[in-house]
């Protein structure tokens, strides 16, 4: 089978399984090198995007340090630990999400944070990005795959419940990312194409209903702005027009590091957070964008390889879903900044300034490394 060749041919070659020290640390050197390359390159872009503010770069460096430790810790755990913890973590997550609705703290009309005494502040919704795919994988992998229709229904319910709670905060962006993570589990589990088609049809029917009943005014505005940024060039359309201008003016080889006028003259909003890819595109041009997307593609490729070579269904489903969630981050962020998608608050993974998503993402890579490096000696 051709597809089998793609993934299994490397199963026994030196690239496949970490040896020696790497194995002892439970790290995958290939994935690690790619991540380090991405993060360190990203810090240079961040320095420019934050308008040469070294404090921002230092703060982000500290976060990466913490995130790497988290990754390292997660990598040491056996995949079965995640499997056993999945239901309990899911329950904790749900309780957290409900608690956020009542006692959460936050800004700009959204309650996302939970400040428990004695614990650092954290976002239950961020936790759910990892736990929902784990829970769905736990449930579906208990039975034969592909799952029966009823089990798919339960799987979808597992995904939908936290989604609804997160939308209530309101945080549509995170809710969709959590949902995507869960749905990819169902997809990888082998939901039939017929059902997938039916599901897609349902979603496309539900979308207009969402427009009229589910979306808030500012969210509608963002969609309208995407379709015609010039309708409000100084208001909602400003971000899109300015980011497209930044990207387009970069040309093939860019204006040079720290030479981006759009970002350094403050025309580009959120230049060190959500819109940082526009800084990269302006200063390093199309070539820079190609390199960035290539690194992301290589990371995804490596992660899919890890997924395919995982030893049990739970690991495969979790690894595959986390990989695809990572990709969705990249796609939504770059699509949004380049004016293909409406503006939703999704950072560019491992490059945008910000702590929470960085830690979550690195934890996900820790899980992937754990899956890759904890091999049971089975002789099947």
């Amino acid at each position, binding site marked *: *089978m051709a*597809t*089998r060749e*793609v*993934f*299994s041919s490397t199963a026994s070659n030196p690239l496949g399984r970490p040896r020696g020290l790497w194995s002892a640390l439970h790290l995958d050197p290939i994935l690690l090198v790619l991540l380090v390359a991405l993060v360190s390159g990203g810090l240079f872009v961040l320095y420019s995007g934050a308008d040469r503010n070294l404090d921002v770069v230092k703060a982000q460096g500290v976060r990466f340090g913490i995130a790497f430790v988290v990754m390292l810790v997660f990598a040491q755990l056996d995949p079965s630990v995640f499997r056993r913890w999945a239901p309990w973590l899911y329950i904790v997550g749900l309780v957290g999400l409900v608690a956020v609705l009542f006692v959460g703290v936050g800004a700009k009309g959204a309650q996302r944070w939970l400040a428990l005494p004695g614990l650092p502040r954290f976002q239950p919704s961020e936790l759910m990005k990892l736990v929902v795919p784990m829970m769905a994988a736990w449930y579906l*992998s*208990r*039975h*034969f*795959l592909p799952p029966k229709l009823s089990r798919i229904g339960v799987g979808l319910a597992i995904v939908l419940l936290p989604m609804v709670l997160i939308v209530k905060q309101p945080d549509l962006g995170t809710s969709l990312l959590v949902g995507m993570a869960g749905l990819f589990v169902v*997809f*990888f589990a082998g939901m039939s194409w017929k059902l997938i088609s039916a599901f897609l049809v349902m979603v496309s029917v539900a979308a207009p209903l969402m427009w009229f009943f589910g979306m808030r005014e500012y969210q509608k505005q963002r969609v309208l702005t995407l379709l015609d940024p010039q309708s409000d060039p*100084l208001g909602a359309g*400003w971000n899109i*027009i*300015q980011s*497209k*201008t*930044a*990207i*387009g*003016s*970069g*040309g*093939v080889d860019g204006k040079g590091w720290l030479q981006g*006028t*759009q970002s*350094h*003259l*403050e*025309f580009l909003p959120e230049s060190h957070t959500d819109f940082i890819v526009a800084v990269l*595109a302006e200063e390093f*041009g*199309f070539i820079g*964008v*190609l390199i960035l*997307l290539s690194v*992301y*593609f290589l990371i*995804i*490729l490596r992660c*899919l390889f890890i*997924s*395919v070579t995982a030893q*049990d*269904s*739970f690991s*495969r489903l979790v690894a*595959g879903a986390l*990989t*695809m969630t990572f*990709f969705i981050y*990249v*796609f939504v962020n770059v*699509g949004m900044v*380049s*004016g*293909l998608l409406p503006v939703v608050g999704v950072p560019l993974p491992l490059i945008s300034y910000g702590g929470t998503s960085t830690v979550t993402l690195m934890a996900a890579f820790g899980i992937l490394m754990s899956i890759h490096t904890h091999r049971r000696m089975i002789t*099947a």
Partner: protein
Amino acid sequence: MPWGEFKDTAAERRLFQRRATVALVFVFLLLAGLVARMYQLQVVEHDIYSTLSDRNRVQVQSVPPPRGLVYDRNQVLLAENRPVFSVTLVPERVGDVDATLQQLVSVLDVSDEDLERFQRRLREPRRPFQEIPLRYDLTEDEIARLAVLRHELPGVEVEAELVRYYPHSELTAHALGFVGRINREELQRIDSVNYAGTNYIGKSGVERFYEELLHGKVGYQHVETNARGRTLRVLDRENPVPGEDLQLHLDLRLQNRAHELLDGRRGAIVAIEPATGGILALASVPGFDANKFVTGISVPDYRELSDSKDKPLFNRALRGQYPPGSTLKPMLAIAALDSGAVTRDHSVWDPGYYQINSTGRRWRDWKRGGHGWVDLTHAMAQSCDVYFYEAAVEMGVDTMVSYLSRFGFGEDATLDVSGALSGLLPSPDWKRATRNEPWYPGDTVNLGIGQGFMLSTPLQLATATALIANRGEWVEPRLLKDIQGDRSRDDFLPDETHEPLKLKDPGNWEYIADAMAEVMHGVKGTARRVGRGASYRMAGKTGTAQVFSLAEDEEYDAEEVRERLRDHALFVGFAPLKNPQIAVAVIVENGGGGSSTAAPVARELFDAWLLEFSAVADGPSISKADPTIEAP
């Protein structure tokens, strides 16, 4: 159910591999989509966005030229530019606009108009981080108060702009004119390129006439700005050409003296240097503070000025049209002599009245019993009306009008005095055209003593007097003495158009000048009391103009009516008699007799100019003489 016991792991693995392959293709396609999008933006449409980016970043700013300064003949500064401060808000940086406004209102004097304008501008579309002005013309006190509060008021800025300032505004408002904000009408007239960045334009007087010279030429700079509109660096710059500094013939000391002499009354004084035509003083009293008009006068202030019965905004010197009365007699005497209507030794019997024919109407002389036998010199000295009635009839209206027009009556004969009116030189044609009435012989009689329809401005009277002082040599009155730059004054001062008035007997000039000296120094001269004790000889003519009517809508109390019905007092003259240095016209509204009210004013001016100032006149150290007047 335990994991892995009854499960077909190989089948599940294959299923996952198939799905992973699909996912990989999905990832690849979407990433390719992103690459295609980036290719479209960065390669295909690069030029569009490059232009947009430059347009964002590079702003063309006009650099307004500093307006030229205006000095008097002694280099005393009459018009300068002063930084004026206004307070602006950047709503994006302010945060709570209402709270900030409230705080500003508590420390500044902000009117409802200011707030209304601010709120209107706030609602209009604008660039992000563009500032909105709240109030102009802050006092130093207010700037200081704002500076103290600065840290509490983010987004509140104090900005400076150069604005015209007249240090001696009350004295010079009518002579200099003033600048004001460019209005809609002017906006259509001016060169919008050259005025980009300029907010003010000459509205009247010198400021208006020499607008082109004073304004200069706009400069440009390309600047890099950030999204807040803050200029970060200048990319390239073409400097503006500053407006030229002008020197006027005006002498602030004489102007000041003229105002002092008319203080508390209404009237006008025009003083001309006969040799140059330079206007030494152009006073219209009461004056007003032109500085109020520069940044925009408040409604109550304007109402106070425009409603005042003394009409301070009315420029009497240029636009006040009065019957010249007897001050016209020297010019008429020239006409009568040169036309041959009278001779030097022609005498007339004045019984106190004049009749064209023995049964007709009697025109009274101002002296009830008459002057008896008078020749031209006596007629001038005593201002005998009957002599001039007769001379007028002898000349006929056409001859009179022809001579009077040579003196500049009925036209604006000035070179650069903006807004001067031409008075009224009546003629049979004019009367038929405007009143549809024939010219009666009586009209000719009235014109003979400067009454009737004839109207002239103080500036016209001074001009005609200067012509006599010059013995017929025309030198048109002008304000501009020199341009203090590379440009030639002659390129901007209009050409002189008047031919010299040549008499058949040029000696008649001297004869009439002597007759005017009789007015001042003769035994029976009407202004003999004024001429007494002078160390120089002067020439003059008194006059009285009847106030015929009040406007119907004007209401006065009885006392005022009596005062305002009094005749206007007039005087024209020059001094010294030989080689005159100064020619003046004085009018004091409702001043009564010209000899008692207007002539003493002229004497004071003569004394000031010839004795008091002459020692240092035109000297470079002049400004030190008056420490209150600041030297440039």
